[in-house]
């Protein structure tokens, strides 16, 4: 807005537009709290110069309501092809476009996007995208009436944040293992799985408001959110926090004329990591003050720098670590013996849910146990006002006494154990991310070239006799070498992140800061070495 007046009359010019509005006279809003904001966000606010939306062309692109539609559209086409070709195409998994693109290419690409950008996949995801088109009753316009019930996810569930997504990821992975979907097995199963995700997303979008599905229930949300913290896209952030604090309308949250309220429940004014920024650009469009920018950040910033460390993220990292370790262990002979023995007793099939969940739980709790041990040995008693020590399992349970404030809620409740466990878990994100990425590499290096005959199969040209069908980009030893290199890189990232985190977050709560720092880095290296060792004994198994 520009108001201009002749220079000699500027002082007398009323700033308020239009005729007198009597309502502001009656308002006496309390001033929002500003003290401490600068220090609170100093480590996580990206440098001003890293706002790529300052470039007019980028700004025009982000301002366009069609942007996300055109990001989603290609993926939408591909995944409906996956569904239809999976059902109607050849049953040879390696030659079926649905299975080939999904398991040889897509999963790897998603991990690359996570590590480099963050939630880039969420911005172009065809599952949430399709359901959102239905919910909004439009492909790209800012419609005012949505379809569906618009409910809020009940608080007793929502309080666990990302853990709901971890749960659905564990369930989906078990189903995938049970039916050998990602093997890949019968292409029909891949189609049904994708259809199931689309249907679940649609159901959530029609029952709940905004992107409740993506924020809470999507199987990939926790993985992308945590591993994506390594990414270099900070997401949409405030350009000037003071403007956001004094904003009277909060269009970015409530929705304005040009953009929807944040579908991910994120406020650019307080975002200190890229964890819950879906990169949809709605806040950028909605802001009436043009005070939202699209910022880049140095890699690992959202791992190292956030002041607010969330317990759900920490437990998500621990459990996801458990899952990927399971996926490594299950390629070993020892696991086959264990699973066969359990199935003789329980007849639950492969993978036996007991060993599946058991291994995940043991790994996650082992990591938590290490953190607990460090907190006992190296931690200081928290002050009485910051909470009570409730043990490892106790932190997962809701408390009755302190539910009135977020400091008593699950994601933020302080304890001596958490003061070590949560920062340490953040520090493990690079090695966990690397482990997931390395786990996908064998399929890529062994079979990625099959996408060509799989496409050729549409035209009757593809064949299992094709040289591309059997082409391996790397030999098994080569794959193992790359896997170990990836793990080494992740371990380095974790070691560096942990070193910084220990200095920032653990030193203040530690009785022996130097020992804590070395021990924390040691944990990161130990995890990396363990993962690397497992890849060596797996011999590049898919």
């Amino acid at each position: 807005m520009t108001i201009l007046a002749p220079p000699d009359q500027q002082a007398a010019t009323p700033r308020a537009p239009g005729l007198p509005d009597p309502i502001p006279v009656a308002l006496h809003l309390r001033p929002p709290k500003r003290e401490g904001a600068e220090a609170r966000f100093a480590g996580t606010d990206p440098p001003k110069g890293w706002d790529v939306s300052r470039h007019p062309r980028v700004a025009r692109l982000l301002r366009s309501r069609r942007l996300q539609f055109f990001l989603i559209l290609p993926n939408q086409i591909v995944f409906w092809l996956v569904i239809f070709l999976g059902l109607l195409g050849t049953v040879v998994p390696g030659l079926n476009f649905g299975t080939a693109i999904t398991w040889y290419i897509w999963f790897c690409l998603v991990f690359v996007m996570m590590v480099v950008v963050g939630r880039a996949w969420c911005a172009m995801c065809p599952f949430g995208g399709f359901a959102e088109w239905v919910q909004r009753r439009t492909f790209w316009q800012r419609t005012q009436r949505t379809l569906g019930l618009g409910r809020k996810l009940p608080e007793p569930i929502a309080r666990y944040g990302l853990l709901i997504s971890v749960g659905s990821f564990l369930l989906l992975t078990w189903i995938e293992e049970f039916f050998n979907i990602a093997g890949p097995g019968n292409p029909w199963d891949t189609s049904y799985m994708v259809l199931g995700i689309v249907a679940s997303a649609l159901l959530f979008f029609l029952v709940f408001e905004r992107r409740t599905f993506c924020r809470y229930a999507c199987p990939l949300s926790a993985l992308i959110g945590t591993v994506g913290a390594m990414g270099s896209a900070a997401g949409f952030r405030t350009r000037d926090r003071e403007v956001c604090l004094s904003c009277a309308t909060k269009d970015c949250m409530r929705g304005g004329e040009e953009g929807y309220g944040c579908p991910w429940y994120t406020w650019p004014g307080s975002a200190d990591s890229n964890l819950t920024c879906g990169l949809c650009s709605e806040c950028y469009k909605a802001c009436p003050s043009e005070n939202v920018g699209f910022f880049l950040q140095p890699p690992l910033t959202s791992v190292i720098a956030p002041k607010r460390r969330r317990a759900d993220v920490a437990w998500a990292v621990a459990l996801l670590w458990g899952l990927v370790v399971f996926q490594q262990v299950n390629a070993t002979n020892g696991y086959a013996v264990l699973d066969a023995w359990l199935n003789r007793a329980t007849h639950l099939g492969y993978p036996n849910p007991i060993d599946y969940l058991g291994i995940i739980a043991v790994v996650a709790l082992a990591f938590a146990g290490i953190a607990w041990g460090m907190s006992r040995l190296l931690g200081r008693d928290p002050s009485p006002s910051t909470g009570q020590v409730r043990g490892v399992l106790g932190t997962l349970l809701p408390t009755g006494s302190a539910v009135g404030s977020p400091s008593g809620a699950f994601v933020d409740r302080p304890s001596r154990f958490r003061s070590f466990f949560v920062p340490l878990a953040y520090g493990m994100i690079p090695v966990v991310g690397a482990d997931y990425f390395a786990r996908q590499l064998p399929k890529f290096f062994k079979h990625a070239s099959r996408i060509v005959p799989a496409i050729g199969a549409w035209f009757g040209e593809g064949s299992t006799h094709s040289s591309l069908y059997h082409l391996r980009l790397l030999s098994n030893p080569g794959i193992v070498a790359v896997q170990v290199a990836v793990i080494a890189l992740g371990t380095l990232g974790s070691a560096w992140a942990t070193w910084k985190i220990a200095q920032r977050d653990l030193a203040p709560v530690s009785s022996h800061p130097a020992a804590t720092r070395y021990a924390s880095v040691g944990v990161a290296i130990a995890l990396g070495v363990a993962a690397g060792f497992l890849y060596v004994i797996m011999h590049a198994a898919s």
Partner: protein
Amino acid sequence: MTFLGTTEPQILALGTNRAAQPTQPLVHVLGDRCAGCQECVVRCPTGALDLDVTTWTVLVDQDRCVACGQCVRTCPFSAITVAGAPQVSPRLALEVEHPASLEHDRHETRRGIATWVDALAEAARCLDCPDPTCVRGCPVHNDIPGFIRALGTGDLDQAHEVLRRTTFLPDVCSRVCDQALQCEGACTWSLAGAEPVAIGALERFVADNAPVPPPAAPTRPDAGAADGLSVAVVGSGPAGLSAAAELVGAGATVTLYEQRDELGGLLRWGIPDFTLPDVVARRLPDALLAAGVEVRFGYTLEPAGLEQLRSDHDAVVLATGASLPLGIRLPGSDLDGVWDATRFLVEARHALTTGGPLPGVAPETDRPTVLVLGGGNTAMDVARSARRLGAAAICVDWMDPRFAPVRPDELAEARAEGVEVRFSRTLTGLNGEEGRVRSAELAATVQERAAERPRVVPNSMERLSVDLVVTAMGYRIDPDLAALAGSVPVKKEVPAVPDRRWIGSGILAAPAPPFARRQPVGRLAVGREQARVLAGLPRLERTWVVGDALVGPSTVVEAMAQGKVAAQAIVHHAPRRPAEPWVAPRRVLIGVESRGGTTAAHAAALANGLVRAGHEARVLPLRDIRAGELAWADALVVATWVEGFVLAGAGPAKATRSWLATLPPLAGMPVGLLCTYAVSPGRTLQRMRAEVERHGGRVVAGAARSGRPKGHQLDGQGLGVLLDAFSRPNADAA
């Protein structure tokens, strides 16, 4: 416990009363979703919320919470919940007095607050919300917490002064407003499901007990702002009185044109004394007369008369109301003894004042029966007047009682006075003897949903002997006057995306409070606000239309609000008759639809040039320009980029076309057009001109430019045609 920042024992004992509601509310903040935006913190009436800087989420002091739920309604992310009942003491019960003998009784039946003790007790129930939803619920936006705060300190004068900033009729509105759908329905206690503060009763306490200064008090901040301005106000109902009072206060010379022989309009003839005593209704008219307002009684507005008014005055306010009664088209509706409510109320008022008999019925008729068609407030007034004139009164309404728009308190009062109110009945015919109505045929109706039209039940006829039938089914704007005013009535529409400040207040988050009879108080308030803002725009050149004439049958307070806004607009623009020397438009609003910044650059250059020429210029994106912004402007410039191709037809951008299509009447406003193009502007200017003129705008210049302004053009020199058009008389389109 601290409350309202005070620890005064008496206030605490009378106000929020934990003893009455021992259950402590429990606030729950969903830490996962709380973004620390502090929308709840800045609005919490008791200061129970704060920000935890470490987590940047909200902290709660549970002991301070009174469960008003303001935080829940205002949170953009639904991240806060409150369990437990609102902690507020019971609302003051006000008495209704019915005289032992109704005959010719004109005493007011509704009692006000009798004592200071009661007034202070009720005032102490007010939470003094930082973002008071009651103020948004009030159509004229009285500073309700402000006047209650003053009242709570015992300062009646200050309380009245606070009310006077926004209302001229606190004594009237406190008596006749349906507060349940307005301020009280929107009170935070009401939105939380509890009984709201008795705002109407407190307003009446102040209005009845504080001295009232004259409308042209020299203490007004805008006194003298309209000196020398001559304004005609046609109609002296609440809208006209309000406009006149505002204009007189600002120093304008006002002439009131009234059809009847007394000022006050509907306040005088339409609302009986037992609801609004004449001594109250005539306070403002008498004050205006005392302030020197010229009055022409017996004036009936004709189309030619409007032209005369416009040539005699600088501005005209049409506040002619919606005076055409909705009639019946049934066999027998032309019989003698079938009256409309207006006629009956006027004659009944006269009869009650002079001790005369029931009008419309032969004096010798023993225990006459009056059948009133309708079940709304006017019908109740008619029936209760008839009861006071010795008749039996029967109201019939075809709606189901669950959906009928009658106020429960008025219905109860009418029934207490012996009025028989029958819902789910409709008139199917009238029978007469010797040309006079003698009986009515009634049939039962059924209605399942509020939006459903009631259906007649077959074979449910009954015959009723009647001596007089009065139609009280509503009114509409006289079509002749509607043709004069142009595109009225306007709809009180709720925009698809309401103002986010209104959403943020929480008034829209509690759609149907029990106290508001499950009506959507927030949406009703937003709709009223649209009409209030529209009243600031002239419908014709130098002609504003307000009140029922603008929106159709409505309420006293809405009419008053619109009259005040129109008067403020007249003072703001200070329009002059054509005979006066030409005055360049002072405030130029430049609306911009720019894609790559070229159009915006030209708009900024034009603004610079206008400022150098002595104008006041304001540049806004087109999408941000609505009635409120237009009301500020004396002239408008629409600047757009050109969309399309030379061959396919270049034209204004789609967003510009959409905006132009929804323009309110421009009433002769001078409009400049500007487009920027890459290859050719095509017919962009012509198409924009046609659309502007369709909405009554007067296009004074147009310019098409290519490329960004450079050098001296940054001062608007490249747009001389537009600069000239706003700086010299008799400009016409280029």
